[in-house]
Protein backbone atom coordinates (compact mmCIF):
# COMPACT_ATOMS: atom_id res chain seq x y z
CA UNK A 1 0.00 0.00 0.00
CA UNK A 2 1.53 3.29 -1.05
CA UNK A 3 -0.88 5.58 0.85
CA UNK A 4 -1.63 5.53 4.55
CA UNK A 5 -4.19 8.29 4.32
CA UNK A 6 -6.83 9.30 1.82
CA UNK A 7 -9.54 11.93 1.45
CA UNK A 8 -12.02 9.22 0.50
CA UNK A 9 -11.93 5.43 0.82
CA UNK A 10 -14.27 3.60 -1.57
CA UNK A 11 -15.06 0.06 -0.45
CA UNK A 12 -15.87 -2.35 -3.26
CA UNK A 13 -14.30 -2.84 -6.70
CA UNK A 14 -17.46 -3.54 -8.61
CA UNK A 15 -18.87 -1.24 -11.24
CA UNK A 16 -20.44 1.07 -8.66
CA UNK A 17 -17.25 1.52 -6.63
CA UNK A 18 -15.16 2.10 -9.74
CA UNK A 19 -17.68 4.62 -11.11
CA UNK A 20 -17.72 6.48 -7.78
CA UNK A 21 -13.90 6.56 -7.66
CA UNK A 22 -13.68 7.89 -11.22
CA UNK A 23 -16.33 10.57 -10.72
CA UNK A 24 -14.64 11.73 -7.51
CA UNK A 25 -11.31 12.08 -9.31
CA UNK A 26 -13.04 13.80 -12.23
CA UNK A 27 -14.20 16.45 -9.73
CA UNK A 28 -10.66 17.00 -8.48
CA UNK A 29 -10.92 14.67 -5.52
CA UNK A 30 -7.99 12.46 -6.51
CA UNK A 31 -6.65 11.37 -3.12
CA UNK A 32 -8.94 8.34 -3.24
CA UNK A 33 -8.22 4.72 -2.37
CA UNK A 34 -10.52 1.98 -3.62
CA UNK A 35 -10.39 -1.31 -1.72
CA UNK A 36 -11.45 -4.61 -3.25
CA UNK A 37 -11.22 -7.92 -1.43
CA UNK A 38 -10.89 -10.00 -4.60
CA UNK A 39 -10.42 -8.70 -8.18
CA UNK A 40 -12.34 -5.94 -9.99
CA UNK A 41 -15.83 -7.08 -11.07
CA UNK A 42 -15.35 -10.41 -9.27
CA UNK A 43 -18.64 -10.10 -7.40
CA UNK A 44 -22.09 -9.17 -8.65
CA UNK A 45 -20.84 -6.83 -11.42
CA UNK A 46 -19.13 -9.65 -13.29
CA UNK A 47 -22.02 -12.04 -12.72
CA UNK A 48 -24.96 -9.90 -13.77
CA UNK A 49 -27.18 -9.98 -16.85
CA UNK A 50 -25.95 -6.45 -17.65
CA UNK A 51 -29.22 -5.18 -19.08
CA UNK A 52 -29.83 -1.44 -19.05
CA UNK A 53 -33.45 -0.29 -19.06
CA UNK A 54 -35.41 2.89 -18.49
CA UNK A 55 -38.84 1.31 -18.20
CA UNK A 56 -39.77 1.64 -14.55
CA UNK A 57 -42.82 2.48 -12.48
CA UNK A 58 -41.48 5.30 -10.32
CA UNK A 59 -40.34 8.69 -11.51
CA UNK A 60 -37.05 8.52 -9.64
CA UNK A 61 -36.10 5.15 -11.13
CA UNK A 62 -37.00 6.39 -14.63
CA UNK A 63 -34.92 9.53 -14.20
CA UNK A 64 -31.91 7.69 -12.76
CA UNK A 65 -32.04 5.10 -15.56
CA UNK A 66 -32.48 7.73 -18.27
CA UNK A 67 -29.44 9.66 -17.05
CA UNK A 68 -27.45 6.41 -16.79
CA UNK A 69 -28.29 5.62 -20.42
CA UNK A 70 -27.11 9.07 -21.49
CA UNK A 71 -23.76 8.36 -19.86
CA UNK A 72 -23.53 4.84 -21.32
CA UNK A 73 -24.11 6.30 -24.81
CA UNK A 74 -20.87 8.31 -24.60
CA UNK A 75 -18.92 6.14 -22.19
CA UNK A 76 -16.13 4.97 -24.50
CA UNK A 77 -15.21 8.58 -25.36
CA UNK A 78 -15.72 9.90 -21.84
CA UNK A 79 -13.50 7.25 -20.25
CA UNK A 80 -11.18 7.08 -23.28
CA UNK A 81 -11.60 3.31 -23.32
CA UNK A 82 -10.50 0.87 -25.97
CA UNK A 83 -11.87 -1.40 -27.24
CA UNK A 84 -15.37 -0.59 -25.96
CA UNK A 85 -17.82 -1.11 -23.13
CA UNK A 86 -20.03 -2.62 -25.85
CA UNK A 87 -23.14 -0.59 -25.07
CA UNK A 88 -25.82 -1.66 -27.57
CA UNK A 89 -29.23 -0.02 -27.66
CA UNK A 90 -31.06 -3.08 -28.88
CA UNK A 91 -34.09 -2.37 -26.72
CA UNK A 92 -36.10 -3.99 -23.95
CA UNK A 93 -39.31 -5.81 -24.82
CA UNK A 94 -41.45 -6.16 -21.69
CA UNK A 95 -44.31 -8.64 -21.84
CA UNK A 96 -47.58 -8.41 -19.88
CA UNK A 97 -49.62 -11.55 -19.15
CA UNK A 98 -52.53 -10.18 -17.13
CA UNK A 99 -54.89 -7.23 -17.35
CA UNK A 100 -53.58 -6.01 -14.01
CA UNK A 101 -49.99 -6.07 -15.31
CA UNK A 102 -51.00 -4.44 -18.57
CA UNK A 103 -52.67 -1.59 -16.69
CA UNK A 104 -49.48 -1.10 -14.69
CA UNK A 105 -47.42 -1.11 -17.91
CA UNK A 106 -49.68 1.55 -19.41
CA UNK A 107 -49.29 3.71 -16.31
CA UNK A 108 -45.52 3.20 -16.62
CA UNK A 109 -45.57 4.24 -20.28
CA UNK A 110 -47.46 7.45 -19.47
CA UNK A 111 -44.88 8.24 -16.79
CA UNK A 112 -41.92 7.32 -19.02
CA UNK A 113 -43.18 9.47 -21.90
CA UNK A 114 -43.64 12.41 -19.54
CA UNK A 115 -39.93 12.01 -18.73
CA UNK A 116 -38.77 11.91 -22.38
CA UNK A 117 -38.29 8.17 -22.46
CA UNK A 118 -39.46 6.89 -25.84
CA UNK A 119 -41.57 3.79 -25.13
CA UNK A 120 -44.06 2.12 -27.47
CA UNK A 121 -46.99 -0.07 -26.50
CA UNK A 122 -47.47 -3.13 -28.70
CA UNK A 123 -50.16 -5.73 -29.26
CA UNK A 124 -48.97 -9.34 -28.95
CA UNK A 125 -48.95 -9.59 -32.75
CA UNK A 126 -46.80 -6.48 -33.10
CA UNK A 127 -44.14 -8.02 -30.87
CA UNK A 128 -43.52 -10.51 -33.68
CA UNK A 129 -42.09 -7.68 -35.78
CA UNK A 130 -39.34 -7.42 -33.15
CA UNK A 131 -38.90 -11.09 -32.17
CA UNK A 132 -40.57 -13.24 -34.86
CA UNK A 133 -40.26 -16.51 -32.95
CA UNK A 134 -41.72 -15.27 -29.65
CA UNK A 135 -44.62 -17.40 -28.40
CA UNK A 136 -47.43 -14.90 -27.86
CA UNK A 137 -49.96 -17.32 -26.30
CA UNK A 138 -51.60 -15.71 -23.30
CA UNK A 139 -49.80 -12.40 -23.77
CA UNK A 140 -51.98 -9.32 -23.22
CA UNK A 141 -49.59 -6.70 -24.53
CA UNK A 142 -46.03 -5.46 -24.44
CA UNK A 143 -43.97 -2.31 -24.21
CA UNK A 144 -40.75 -1.60 -26.09
CA UNK A 145 -38.03 0.98 -25.67
CA UNK A 146 -35.35 0.96 -28.36
CA UNK A 147 -32.95 3.09 -26.29
CA UNK A 148 -32.73 0.43 -23.58
CA UNK A 149 -29.98 -2.11 -24.04
CA UNK A 150 -27.01 -3.98 -22.75
CA UNK A 151 -23.33 -3.38 -22.02
CA UNK A 152 -20.37 -5.53 -21.13
CA UNK A 153 -20.09 -5.40 -17.33
CA UNK A 154 -16.39 -6.33 -17.24
CA UNK A 155 -15.40 -3.70 -19.79
CA UNK A 156 -17.57 -1.10 -18.04
CA UNK A 157 -15.95 -1.78 -14.66
CA UNK A 158 -12.43 -1.85 -16.14
CA UNK A 159 -13.12 1.34 -18.12
CA UNK A 160 -14.03 3.23 -14.93
CA UNK A 161 -11.11 1.69 -13.01
CA UNK A 162 -8.55 2.55 -15.69
CA UNK A 163 -9.82 6.10 -16.04
CA UNK A 164 -9.81 6.52 -12.25
CA UNK A 165 -6.22 5.27 -12.03
CA UNK A 166 -5.12 7.69 -14.73
CA UNK A 167 -6.49 10.51 -12.59
CA UNK A 168 -4.53 9.33 -9.55
CA UNK A 169 -6.92 7.03 -7.71
CA UNK A 170 -5.19 4.12 -6.01
CA UNK A 171 -7.04 0.84 -6.57
CA UNK A 172 -6.02 -2.00 -4.28
CA UNK A 173 -7.28 -5.44 -5.14
CA UNK A 174 -6.88 -8.48 -2.87
CA UNK A 175 -7.22 -6.07 0.03
CA UNK A 176 -9.95 -6.83 2.53
CA UNK A 177 -11.56 -4.32 4.86
CA UNK A 178 -11.44 -5.67 8.42
CA UNK A 179 -12.73 -2.69 10.37
CA UNK A 180 -13.74 0.96 10.32
CA UNK A 181 -12.64 3.09 13.26
CA UNK A 182 -15.22 5.65 14.34
CA UNK A 183 -14.89 8.11 17.23
CA UNK A 184 -17.71 10.46 18.27
CA UNK A 185 -19.57 9.63 15.04
CA UNK A 186 -16.57 10.62 12.95
CA UNK A 187 -14.64 8.19 10.79
CA UNK A 188 -10.98 7.95 11.70
CA UNK A 189 -9.64 5.16 9.53
CA UNK A 190 -10.30 2.04 7.52
CA UNK A 191 -8.43 -1.04 8.68
CA UNK A 192 -7.46 -3.57 6.01
CA UNK A 193 -5.55 -6.83 6.04
CA UNK A 194 -2.67 -4.91 4.44
CA UNK A 195 -2.58 -1.86 6.67
CA UNK A 196 -4.55 1.10 7.96
CA UNK A 197 -5.72 4.08 5.89
CA UNK A 198 -6.58 7.23 7.80
CA UNK A 199 -9.64 8.91 6.31
CA UNK A 200 -12.71 10.94 7.20
CA UNK A 201 -14.91 9.63 4.40
CA UNK A 202 -16.06 6.19 3.32
CA UNK A 203 -18.28 5.22 0.39
CA UNK A 204 -19.79 1.79 0.95
CA UNK A 205 -20.10 0.11 -2.47
CA UNK A 206 -19.73 -3.45 -1.18
CA UNK A 207 -22.83 -4.85 -2.89
CA UNK A 208 -24.41 -7.71 -0.96
CA UNK A 209 -21.75 -7.31 1.72
CA UNK A 210 -22.66 -3.67 2.37
CA UNK A 211 -24.59 -4.56 5.52
CA UNK A 212 -21.46 -6.21 6.92
CA UNK A 213 -19.29 -3.23 6.00
CA UNK A 214 -21.77 -0.81 7.61
CA UNK A 215 -21.76 -2.94 10.78
CA UNK A 216 -17.99 -2.30 11.05
CA UNK A 217 -18.85 1.38 11.53
CA UNK A 218 -21.56 0.49 14.03
CA UNK A 219 -24.35 1.11 11.52
CA UNK A 220 -27.34 -1.20 11.19
CA UNK A 221 -27.94 -1.26 7.43
CA UNK A 222 -30.61 -3.65 6.12
CA UNK A 223 -28.77 -4.99 3.06
CA UNK A 224 -28.30 -8.70 2.50
CA UNK A 225 -27.38 -11.17 -0.22
CA UNK A 226 -29.91 -13.04 -2.33
CA UNK A 227 -28.70 -15.57 -4.88
CA UNK A 228 -29.80 -15.17 -8.49
CA UNK A 229 -28.80 -17.68 -11.12
CA UNK A 230 -28.10 -17.19 -14.78
CA UNK A 231 -26.82 -19.17 -17.75
CA UNK A 232 -25.26 -18.63 -21.14
CA UNK A 233 -25.60 -20.65 -24.35
CA UNK A 234 -23.30 -21.38 -27.23
CA UNK A 235 -23.12 -18.47 -29.70
CA UNK A 236 -25.07 -18.33 -32.97
CA UNK A 237 -25.47 -15.56 -35.54
CA UNK A 238 -27.72 -12.70 -34.31
CA UNK A 239 -31.45 -13.46 -34.41
CA UNK A 240 -32.79 -11.53 -31.40
CA UNK A 241 -32.13 -7.86 -30.70
CA UNK A 242 -33.80 -6.83 -27.46
CA UNK A 243 -33.81 -8.06 -23.92
CA UNK A 244 -37.09 -9.99 -23.58
CA UNK A 245 -38.50 -9.75 -20.08
CA UNK A 246 -41.64 -11.13 -18.46
CA UNK A 247 -42.47 -10.41 -14.84
CA UNK A 248 -45.21 -13.03 -14.98
CA UNK A 249 -42.61 -15.72 -15.71
CA UNK A 250 -39.95 -13.92 -13.68
CA UNK A 251 -37.83 -14.28 -16.82
CA UNK A 252 -35.33 -12.34 -18.91
CA UNK A 253 -33.30 -13.35 -21.96
CA UNK A 254 -30.98 -11.52 -24.32
CA UNK A 255 -28.66 -12.41 -27.16
CA UNK A 256 -25.38 -10.59 -26.48
CA UNK A 257 -23.13 -9.20 -29.26
CA UNK A 258 -20.91 -12.29 -29.19
CA UNK A 259 -23.97 -14.37 -30.22
CA UNK A 260 -24.60 -16.20 -26.95
CA UNK A 261 -27.93 -15.98 -25.16
CA UNK A 262 -27.85 -14.93 -21.50
CA UNK A 263 -30.94 -15.67 -19.43
CA UNK A 264 -32.29 -15.98 -15.93
CA UNK A 265 -35.42 -16.69 -13.94
CA UNK A 266 -36.20 -15.86 -10.33
CA UNK A 267 -36.37 -18.83 -7.99
CA UNK A 268 -39.15 -18.61 -5.41
CA UNK A 269 -38.14 -19.02 -1.79
CA UNK A 270 -34.48 -18.08 -2.26
CA UNK A 271 -33.21 -17.56 1.30
CA UNK A 272 -31.13 -14.63 2.52
CA UNK A 273 -27.50 -15.63 2.25
CA UNK A 274 -24.23 -15.58 0.39
CA UNK A 275 -24.30 -18.86 -1.54
CA UNK A 276 -23.39 -18.57 -5.20
CA UNK A 277 -23.73 -22.25 -6.05
CA UNK A 278 -25.62 -23.31 -9.15
CA UNK A 279 -28.69 -25.52 -8.80
CA UNK A 280 -30.29 -28.11 -11.05
CA UNK A 281 -33.72 -26.67 -10.16
CA UNK A 282 -32.75 -23.44 -11.88
CA UNK A 283 -31.58 -25.24 -15.01
CA UNK A 284 -34.82 -27.21 -15.20
CA UNK A 285 -37.04 -24.19 -14.52
CA UNK A 286 -35.09 -22.13 -17.03
CA UNK A 287 -35.45 -24.79 -19.72
CA UNK A 288 -39.21 -25.08 -19.19
CA UNK A 289 -39.77 -21.31 -19.34
CA UNK A 290 -37.47 -20.83 -22.32
CA UNK A 291 -39.18 -23.60 -24.29
CA UNK A 292 -42.48 -21.93 -23.60
CA UNK A 293 -41.56 -18.34 -24.48
CA UNK A 294 -38.72 -18.56 -27.05
CA UNK A 295 -38.95 -22.13 -28.41
CA UNK A 296 -36.13 -22.05 -31.01
CA UNK A 297 -33.61 -20.76 -28.46
CA UNK A 298 -34.19 -23.92 -26.41
CA UNK A 299 -32.34 -25.88 -29.10
CA UNK A 300 -29.06 -24.27 -28.05
CA UNK A 301 -26.61 -25.97 -25.74
CA UNK A 302 -25.85 -24.41 -22.37
CA UNK A 303 -22.20 -23.44 -22.08
CA UNK A 304 -22.15 -22.23 -18.50
CA UNK A 305 -24.39 -21.63 -15.50
CA UNK A 306 -23.46 -19.45 -12.56
CA UNK A 307 -24.91 -17.29 -9.80
CA UNK A 308 -24.38 -13.91 -8.21
CA UNK A 309 -25.89 -11.96 -5.37
CA UNK A 310 -28.51 -9.25 -5.48
CA UNK A 311 -27.67 -6.67 -2.80
CA UNK A 312 -31.21 -6.71 -1.48
CA UNK A 313 -32.79 -3.92 0.54
CA UNK A 314 -36.20 -4.18 2.24
CA UNK A 315 -38.00 -2.35 -0.62
CA UNK A 316 -35.69 -3.62 -3.38
CA UNK A 317 -34.58 -0.04 -4.06
CA UNK A 318 -31.10 1.49 -3.83
CA UNK A 319 -29.76 3.05 -0.65
CA UNK A 320 -27.91 6.24 -1.56
CA UNK A 321 -26.43 8.96 0.59
CA UNK A 322 -25.00 9.69 3.99
CA UNK A 323 -25.98 7.54 6.92
CA UNK A 324 -26.40 9.38 10.26
CA UNK A 325 -25.38 9.38 13.02
CA UNK A 326 -21.94 8.54 11.58
CA UNK A 327 -20.69 11.51 9.57
CA UNK A 328 -19.38 11.05 6.06
CA UNK A 329 -20.27 7.39 5.80
CA UNK A 330 -21.98 7.19 2.40
CA UNK A 331 -23.94 4.26 1.03
CA UNK A 332 -24.29 3.28 -2.62
CA UNK A 333 -25.81 -0.18 -2.34
CA UNK A 334 -29.07 -2.09 -1.98
CA UNK A 335 -29.61 -2.04 -5.75
CA UNK A 336 -31.49 -5.35 -5.69
CA UNK A 337 -30.66 -6.29 -9.27
CA UNK A 338 -30.28 -2.84 -10.86
CA UNK A 339 -26.80 -1.80 -9.75
CA UNK A 340 -25.09 -2.29 -13.08
CA UNK A 341 -27.63 -0.33 -15.12
CA UNK A 342 -27.65 2.57 -12.65
CA UNK A 343 -23.91 2.62 -11.92
CA UNK A 344 -22.94 5.53 -14.23
CA UNK A 345 -25.39 7.97 -12.66
CA UNK A 346 -24.80 6.61 -9.15
CA UNK A 347 -21.10 7.40 -9.62
CA UNK A 348 -21.99 10.99 -10.49
CA UNK A 349 -24.47 11.40 -7.63
CA UNK A 350 -22.15 9.96 -4.99
CA UNK A 351 -19.23 12.08 -6.14
CA UNK A 352 -21.44 15.18 -6.00
CA UNK A 353 -22.63 14.28 -2.50
CA UNK A 354 -19.13 13.58 -1.22
CA UNK A 355 -17.57 16.71 -2.70
CA UNK A 356 -20.39 19.26 -2.32
CA UNK A 357 -22.99 17.74 0.02
CA UNK A 358 -25.64 18.02 -2.71
CA UNK A 359 -26.58 16.04 -5.82
CA UNK A 360 -27.99 17.18 -9.16
CA UNK A 361 -30.79 14.61 -8.84
CA UNK A 362 -32.70 14.63 -5.55
CA UNK A 363 -32.16 11.19 -4.04
CA UNK A 364 -33.22 12.05 -0.49
CA UNK A 365 -36.04 9.47 -0.72
CA UNK A 366 -33.40 6.75 -1.08
CA UNK A 367 -31.62 7.38 2.22
CA UNK A 368 -31.02 4.59 4.71
CA UNK A 369 -33.31 6.27 7.22
CA UNK A 370 -36.45 5.51 5.19
CA UNK A 371 -36.80 2.01 6.66
CA UNK A 372 -36.95 3.30 10.25
CA UNK A 373 -39.41 6.01 9.13
CA UNK A 374 -41.55 3.42 7.33
CA UNK A 375 -41.26 5.35 4.05
CA UNK A 376 -40.48 2.51 1.68
CA UNK A 377 -40.14 3.24 -2.04
CA UNK A 378 -42.30 0.75 -3.91
CA UNK A 379 -41.29 -0.02 -7.50
CA UNK A 380 -43.96 -2.14 -9.20
CA UNK A 381 -41.82 -3.29 -12.10
CA UNK A 382 -39.02 -5.66 -11.05
CA UNK A 383 -37.92 -9.26 -11.69
CA UNK A 384 -37.33 -11.60 -8.76
Amino acid at each position, binding site marked *: MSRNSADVVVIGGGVVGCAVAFELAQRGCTNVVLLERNTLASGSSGRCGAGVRQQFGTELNCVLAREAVRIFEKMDERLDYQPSVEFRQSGYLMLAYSDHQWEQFQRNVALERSLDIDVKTLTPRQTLDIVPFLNIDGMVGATFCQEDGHANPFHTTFAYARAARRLGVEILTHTEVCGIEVENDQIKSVVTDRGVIATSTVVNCAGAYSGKVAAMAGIDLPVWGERHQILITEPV*EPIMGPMVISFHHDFYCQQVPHGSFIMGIGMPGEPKGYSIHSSVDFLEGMAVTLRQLLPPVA*QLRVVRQWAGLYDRSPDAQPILGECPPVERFFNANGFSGHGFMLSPIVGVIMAELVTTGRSSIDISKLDAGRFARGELVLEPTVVG
Partner: protein
Amino acid sequence: MVRLKEHPILDFPPGREVAFTFNGKEIRGVEGEPIAAALHAAGVRVLRHSPVLGRARGFFCAIGTCSSCLMTVDGVPNVRVCTEPLTQGMVIETQKGHGHLPID
Protein backbone atom coordinates in the same frame (compact mmCIF):
# COMPACT_ATOMS: atom_id res chain seq x y z
CA MET B 1 -7.34 -42.75 -48.51
CA VAL B 2 -5.95 -42.75 -44.95
CA ARG B 3 -8.39 -45.17 -43.36
CA LEU B 4 -6.76 -47.76 -41.03
CA LYS B 5 -7.73 -51.33 -41.75
CA GLU B 6 -5.63 -53.04 -39.09
CA HIS B 7 -4.69 -51.93 -35.58
CA PRO B 8 -2.94 -53.80 -32.72
CA ILE B 9 -5.73 -53.08 -30.20
CA LEU B 10 -8.80 -51.78 -31.99
CA ASP B 11 -11.08 -53.70 -34.31
CA PHE B 12 -12.66 -52.15 -37.37
CA PRO B 13 -15.65 -54.32 -38.18
CA PRO B 14 -16.77 -53.83 -41.75
CA GLY B 15 -19.51 -51.17 -41.80
CA ARG B 16 -22.15 -50.27 -44.32
CA GLU B 17 -21.04 -47.66 -46.78
CA VAL B 18 -23.34 -44.62 -46.81
CA ALA B 19 -23.55 -41.49 -48.93
CA PHE B 20 -23.67 -37.96 -47.49
CA THR B 21 -22.97 -34.47 -48.76
CA PHE B 22 -20.28 -32.01 -47.72
CA ASN B 23 -21.05 -28.47 -48.91
CA GLY B 24 -23.20 -30.01 -51.64
CA LYS B 25 -20.63 -32.51 -52.85
CA GLU B 26 -21.50 -36.18 -52.45
CA ILE B 27 -19.02 -38.23 -50.38
CA ARG B 28 -19.13 -41.79 -49.07
CA GLY B 29 -18.23 -42.94 -45.57
CA VAL B 30 -18.87 -45.75 -43.10
CA GLU B 31 -22.14 -45.71 -41.18
CA GLY B 32 -21.64 -44.97 -37.48
CA GLU B 33 -18.13 -43.63 -37.71
CA PRO B 34 -17.59 -40.04 -36.55
CA ILE B 35 -18.51 -37.58 -39.29
CA ALA B 36 -15.03 -36.07 -38.94
CA ALA B 37 -13.45 -39.47 -39.69
CA ALA B 38 -15.44 -39.77 -42.90
CA LEU B 39 -14.49 -36.23 -43.90
CA HIS B 40 -10.84 -36.85 -43.08
CA ALA B 41 -10.81 -40.06 -45.09
CA ALA B 42 -12.22 -38.06 -47.99
CA GLY B 43 -9.38 -35.54 -47.75
CA VAL B 44 -11.31 -32.73 -46.04
CA ARG B 45 -8.86 -30.95 -43.75
CA VAL B 46 -10.55 -27.62 -42.99
CA LEU B 47 -13.68 -28.12 -40.88
CA ARG B 48 -14.45 -24.53 -39.90
CA HIS B 49 -13.00 -21.04 -39.72
CA SER B 50 -12.53 -19.14 -36.48
CA PRO B 51 -15.38 -16.66 -36.08
CA VAL B 52 -13.37 -13.50 -35.45
CA LEU B 53 -10.19 -13.79 -37.55
CA GLY B 54 -11.44 -16.34 -40.06
CA ARG B 55 -8.51 -18.71 -39.59
CA ALA B 56 -8.78 -22.32 -40.77
CA ARG B 57 -9.54 -24.91 -38.09
CA GLY B 58 -9.14 -28.67 -38.58
CA PHE B 59 -9.53 -31.99 -36.80
CA PHE B 60 -7.95 -31.34 -33.40
CA CYS B 61 -9.02 -32.82 -30.05
CA ALA B 62 -11.21 -35.54 -31.60
CA ILE B 63 -13.09 -36.07 -28.32
CA GLY B 64 -15.79 -33.39 -28.43
CA THR B 65 -14.06 -30.78 -26.31
CA CYS B 66 -12.24 -28.17 -28.34
CA SER B 67 -14.77 -26.52 -30.74
CA SER B 68 -12.36 -26.90 -33.65
CA CYS B 69 -14.77 -29.07 -35.67
CA LEU B 70 -18.12 -27.33 -35.18
CA MET B 71 -20.18 -27.73 -38.35
CA THR B 72 -23.80 -27.48 -39.41
CA VAL B 73 -25.34 -30.94 -39.72
CA ASP B 74 -28.82 -31.31 -41.20
CA GLY B 75 -29.40 -27.62 -40.48
CA VAL B 76 -28.30 -27.77 -36.83
CA PRO B 77 -25.34 -25.46 -36.11
CA ASN B 78 -22.35 -26.12 -33.86
CA VAL B 79 -22.40 -29.92 -34.13
CA ARG B 80 -19.13 -31.48 -32.97
CA VAL B 81 -18.49 -33.70 -35.95
CA CYS B 82 -15.63 -35.55 -34.22
CA THR B 83 -18.14 -37.32 -31.97
CA GLU B 84 -21.34 -37.28 -34.05
CA PRO B 85 -21.98 -40.61 -35.84
CA LEU B 86 -22.43 -40.58 -39.61
CA THR B 87 -25.76 -41.67 -41.05
CA GLN B 88 -27.05 -42.13 -44.59
CA GLY B 89 -27.97 -38.92 -46.39
CA MET B 90 -26.57 -36.43 -43.85
CA VAL B 91 -26.13 -32.88 -45.07
CA ILE B 92 -22.84 -31.50 -43.68
CA GLU B 93 -21.96 -27.84 -44.19
CA THR B 94 -19.18 -25.57 -43.02
CA GLN B 95 -20.60 -22.73 -40.92
CA LYS B 96 -20.75 -19.06 -41.69
CA GLY B 97 -19.61 -17.32 -38.50
CA HIS B 98 -21.25 -18.87 -35.46
CA GLY B 99 -23.84 -20.74 -37.51
CA HIS B 100 -27.51 -20.02 -37.92
CA LEU B 101 -30.11 -21.29 -35.47
CA PRO B 102 -33.09 -22.74 -37.35
CA ILE B 103 -36.28 -20.81 -36.55
CA ASP B 104 -39.45 -22.03 -38.24
